[in-house]
Structure formats: C-alpha cells, structure tokens
C-alpha cells in the first residue's frame, strides 16, 4: 500500500514533464512577458482546460503581471495553481472514512450515504460512454476496497457488448473478486437484482455495478440505466447510493456534454477520471466540475489493479503547473 502515493506522483511526473516542456522558461525564475503569456495560453488550452478556465487563469496572471512587471514564472505558476485549487474546491470525493495510511489523513471523508438498512450493501453504479474504463475501474475499485478489508460483490451488468461479461470474470479470477454474472444478451436489470441479493446474503459492504458503455446521445440506452436503478430500488429505495460517471481523461470538451446529459437523466453523484497516465492533463474535468459540481472520487493511472488513486485537488493543481512542494 505504501507504493500508492509514489505511484500517484510517478503517474503525474510524466504530466509535469510534459507541461514543463511546453512552458519551458515560463515557470522558471525568469520574469514573464507577452510571449511567455502566449506560451501559457497555449499550455492551458492544450491541457483541455477549455475557453472559460483558460481565460480565468490568464486574466489573473495578467492582472498580477500588470501590478508587478517583474513577476517571475514561478509566481505565475503559483497563481495558476491557486486558480485551479479555487475552481476545484470541494472536488475531492471520498468514498468512506479512510483507513489510516491509505488516504492522506488530512482529507476529510465524505459521509457515507445512508442505506435503507444498516446491513444493506452500499451500491456503486459505474456508467459512461463506450471504452471510458468502467469495467477496469470496477475491478480496480473492488480490489482496492478488499485490500482495505471491505466485502465487495461485483455485478456484471454489461450484458450487451461482446465478451464484456468474460472481461470482468477474468478480472475476478486474477484478483479473487466475487462476481455475479449472467450471459451476453441477458437482462441487465435482473443481474443487478440478483447481485444485490447475493451481496446482502453474504453480508458485503459494497456492490459495484459495471454497466454497458453508451453514448449519452442515445436516450433508449439511458432508459436501460433507469431500469437497473428501479430494480435495485425494489431492494433498497436509496440504491444505488453512488452513481459515478467514468470519464476518459484524454477526451476534450465533449466529456462536459457527456456529464451533463448523464447527470440529467441519471442524477450522478461523482466522477472517476481514467487514463491520466498518458500525457493528457485531463483538463476537461475542470469544466465538468465548474458546471456540475460533481466530486471526483478516483483517477485511473494505468491498467493494473493498484492503478486507481483517490483524487487530490492539491496534487492535481500543483502537478499541472509544476509547482514544487
């Protein structure tokens, strides 16, 4: 477990290097000028921050520059990081009281959402567009929770995509996870129903529901999600307590559209951002947070079980701007 924090930093180290390349001298000791401001603008846009956040950060740095023509790159970076921290204030989702040593003890835990009955499992539904990382995240999270000593059941509710059930089952064998599954073409809601029952009977703390990928523009597929939800609510009217959108961190502004539509039709409670182990800065999540104020619970930093990390605003903002501790 100690490797986790290191892994987080290592994952983001690539990010820091990448943005450092772009901005070069900008975030160093030299005073900034008009041309470094343009470089900064480019760096912000290429991090997928979008028009609004980019303008906001630029305005603040320009204002500081107006006041102090000797403004150093480092100070500018600190301003940028501060803007991000302000915009993302409250964006850290915490699943449960942290187990000491796993999550930075400084971060307060979000209260665990109530279940109708204390012995009911807490249900986490993973939803998102095709290929965003739902299945992998479901497996990683189940493993993580098990490592923390929780009992977890997985529901293989992607009964649509070819070999989706098998994919989750392979994870189950690899990581010794408990999975309730049917076959491709089966009724996904029925799988969810059975899985809940199994999780309850075995006294599990969590039920993680992996769902089929769907583009947010397809309302008929959105209806299927609603059905899964209705069926779970027959067991427990508060389920699924967590409804997380799994967002591919390398996507651009369209992920804001995705989040909006999924939120409208399914009432999201949080996000997981995947594939941040690439060179993408995942700036679109800032846009999502601005608009929807949905907390980010985890980020994905690779394909292995341990590559799922709690999201930290501080680390993210500092990593993006290359601010040293």
């Amino acid at each position: 477990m100690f490797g986790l924090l290191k892994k987080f930093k290592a994952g983001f180290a690539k990010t820091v290097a990448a943005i450092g390349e772009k901005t070069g001298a900008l975030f160093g000791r030299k005073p900034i000028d008009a041309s470094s401001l343009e470089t900064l603008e480019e760096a912000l846009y290429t991090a997928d921050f979008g028009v609004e956040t980019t303008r906001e950060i630029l305005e603040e740095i320009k204002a500081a520059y107006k006041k102090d023509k000797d403004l150093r790159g480092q100070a500018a970076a600190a301003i940028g990081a501060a803007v991000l921290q302000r915009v993302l204030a409250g964006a850290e989702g915490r699943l449960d009281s942290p187990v000491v040593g796993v999550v930075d003890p400084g971060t307060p835990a979000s209260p665990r959402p109530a279940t109708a009955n204390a012995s009911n499992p807490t249900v986490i539904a993973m939803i998102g567009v095709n290929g965003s990382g739902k299945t992998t995240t479901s497996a990683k999270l189940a493993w993580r929770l098990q490592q923390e000593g929780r009992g977890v059941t997985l529901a293989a509710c992607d009964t649509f995509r070819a070999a989706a059930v098998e994919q989750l089952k392979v994870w189950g064998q690899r990581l010794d996870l408990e999975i309730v599954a049917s076959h491709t073409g089966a009724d996904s809601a029925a799988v969810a129903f059975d899985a809940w029952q199994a999780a309850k009977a075995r006294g599990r703390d969590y039920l993680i529901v992996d769902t089929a990928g769907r583009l947010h523009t397809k309302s008929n597929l959105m209806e299927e999600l609603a059905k899964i939800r209705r069926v779970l609510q027959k067991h427990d009217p508060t389920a699924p307590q967590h409804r997380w959108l799994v967002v591919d961190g390398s996507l651009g502004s369209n992920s804001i559209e995705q989040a909006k539509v999924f939120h409208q039709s399914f009432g999201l409670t949080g996000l997981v951002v995947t594939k941040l182990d690439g060179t993408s800065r995942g700036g679109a999540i800032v846009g999502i947070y601005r608009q929807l104020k949905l907390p980010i619970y985890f980020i994905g930093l690779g394909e292995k079980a341990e590559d799922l990390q709690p999201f930290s605003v501080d680390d993210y903002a500092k990593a993006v701007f290359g601010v040293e501790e």
Partner: protein
Amino acid sequence: MFESLTEKLTSALRNLRGVGKLTEENMATALQEVRTALLAADVHFKVAREFVERVQTQCAGQEVIKSVTPGQQVVKIIHDELVRLLGEGTNTLSPARPLRILMAGLHGSGKTTSTAKLGKLLKKRGYRPLLVACDIHRPAAIDQLEILAKQEELDFHSDRASRDVAAIGTAALAVAQAGGNDCIIFDTAGRLQIDQDLIEEVKRLRAKVQPDEVLLVVDGALGQEAVNVAKAFHDALQLTGLILTKLDGDARGGAALSIKAITGVPIKFVGTGEKTADFDTFYPDRLASRILGMGDVVSLVEKAQENIDQKDAERLAEKMRKADFNLEDFLAQMQQVKKLGSMQSILGMMPGMSGVQLPDGADRQMARTEAIIKSMTLQERRKPDILNGNRRQRIANGAGVKIVEVNQLLKQFQQMQKMMKMMKGGGAKKMMRQMEAMKGRGGFPGM
C-alpha cells in the same frame, strides 16, 4: 459550438454590409469567433491558430457578395478550407492483395469493433477477410473479436497460449494463405503512445507482417491530446490512415482536424454507431459540414443507395408522389430505413440534427410500429379507414401494445398522407431535384 458558428459569424459580420471588401480589420472579431469555436471543438491550439491565419489571408480582399450575407460568405470560405485540409491525400485503401491492415490506437478508442466493421465492409466489397486477435493484454479482448467475427461470418485467427504478438501475426499470414483469405486485419491492444514496451511490441508486429495499411483508431471526442498521440503513433508505425469513431455522439470531431493538419495522415473511415453496419467511408466535405453544423445529407443519400433496393425504393417514391401510400408501403419503407443503421445514426447525418437526441427509444418505437402494422390484415393495411374500435383492439393485442399506440400510429399516418397530398402539386419534385443537385448524380429514393 459549431452549430451556432454560422449565426455567430453572421452577427459579427452584420455591419460589413455596404463596406464592399473583407479586410483584416473588419474581419478581426469574426475570426476571433472562428478561433474560439475551433478551440471549443477541441481543435488543437496551434492548428486553430494556423487555420484562422490561412482563412484570414483568403478572406482579405474578397468582395462582399451582395446576394449572400458576409457571414455566409465567410462560412463558405471556412468550409472550403476545412474540406481542403481534411481531404488532402487519398481516403481509399491500398489495392494490394492480399491486403494486410494493422489497427492501432489508445485504450477504448474502438479498435476491436472497428476491426469487425471493416471486415464486414470489405467482405461486402468482395474480399475474404481474416480477423486476427493480437490484443493479448486486455482481459477477454480475444473473445470479443471472436464473437464479432462469428456474428459477421468472418474468418478468425487467435493463439491464446502465445504471448508473442509478432509470432501470432506471422502465423496468421500462413493461415490466411492456406485459407485463401485475401485480406488480413490485425486487431491490437490499446496502448499509450508513451508506453515504450507496448509501442515496441506493435512495432515488431508491423515489421513482421508488413501491413499495406496501418490505421490509427481515434475516438471522435479526443481532446488536445490527439496531436501527441497521432505524432507518436505515426513516428512508430508510419500510419497510412485514420478511423474516427463514436461520431454518433455529439462530439464535434476537432481532433480529426488536428491530426490531419499535424501528421497529414488521411482520414479513411468513420464509425457512427455500435452496430457493425454503422461504418462509413470518410468524405471530407461531410465532416466539414458536420463541423459547421450543416449536417450530412450526402452521406445519407449514399447510404440509402448502397443499402436500399433501388426498384423498391422507386416504387415507394412513386407512390408517395402520387399520395397513394398505404400502411403496407409504410412498413416496406420502414424496413428499408432500418437497413441504413440505427435511427440515431441516420439522424446524425441530417442537417442540423447531429447531436439531437431521439425521443425515448426511437429504434424500439420503430419496432413497435412494425409490430402493429404486422398485426393488421392486408386489407387493413391497404385501407386503414376500415379500422374500427374492435379491429384496433385486436391489433393492439396482437402487437402487445396498448390501443392508444395503435390510434397514435393511425393518426400519424393520416397526417403523413395529408402532407403527401400537399406535396403532390410539385413540391415533391422540387425536393427531388434539390437532392439530385446536392448529390450530383442519381436521385434520393424513397425518403
């Protein structure tokens, strides 16, 4: 949003009327709008800047044409420039036989699905494709391709015991030769462009199988990252083309423009839905139009021609023109439309409709409508007027729907008939002519 770019430009350029010439100064605000729109559409920062500069030079000095608004004129210039940029290079596949195609890309971009789609398309064009599973990393990726291959009745090769992708590829070439496959498509694992080990793996595969086409599969919603990704994959694999996926969503596809501008690699295909039929050849003018919110009527026209029985379509069109269109014809027409792909993907090709959501379960709705009509007798289909309460109830029972749905359908059909009668006077002809002009050849049958 691109959808509103035309409007924005029109308002930004409103006061240009009477000025006579487009100049750098009077274009400044408008071009700012263009840049913002491009950035909001995820076009890479540098590409957006260069694009705007180029448009600026082209606009400067042009007369403001009296008959159109300056906004439309600028949109036309932008559109043409976009088409030029997107369309450079050839979008056809290599004529080599056997034709070896290597698929590559990031995680979750749609490689496996696109492999099956491409296989299906090439089979239709007379090839005998062999799909080869080279994704040995993602759990059950091999199963996924195998299932899709079976579903599309395509040959398939895998080696579950092997951890050597290059060896799997080499073995597949022999399998293809023995089996008489003249087209071999290699599906590979998703990988980050900075993952040295995995990039080496696919490079070795490339060296062994010597593909005629190396296609990068890119999510249409990819952000600014597109440029880094494409550059690195191009360096490692010498790409010959791109496949742009998930265009049935409302992503504006700016990544495609970035990649094209930076690497020069032509876009060859687009994925427009989860069904294996939702796959198309790439036409630059269509993406440019989609980008500018002008829809994609041409695609729809072509798709219709490929999948619809010409004679049938003409017969239906004729009946429509004569306003002699009964429920039986309606059913036949619906069955033809279904061949075009899912309703959402058809809608995505219509002007101004990309990104519009279909009302709840449109495809399912269509299935219900079909069920209702199928529960009618031939006589009823031909003369819906005879449908009294009893008959309607019987039909509802037969189709497993409520009677109100039957009533609704009949009402809609009446309205449709009314419209056809209205168009009988020549409106329809005019519409057909327009379609013809747009397409350049052939008409637009049956719709």
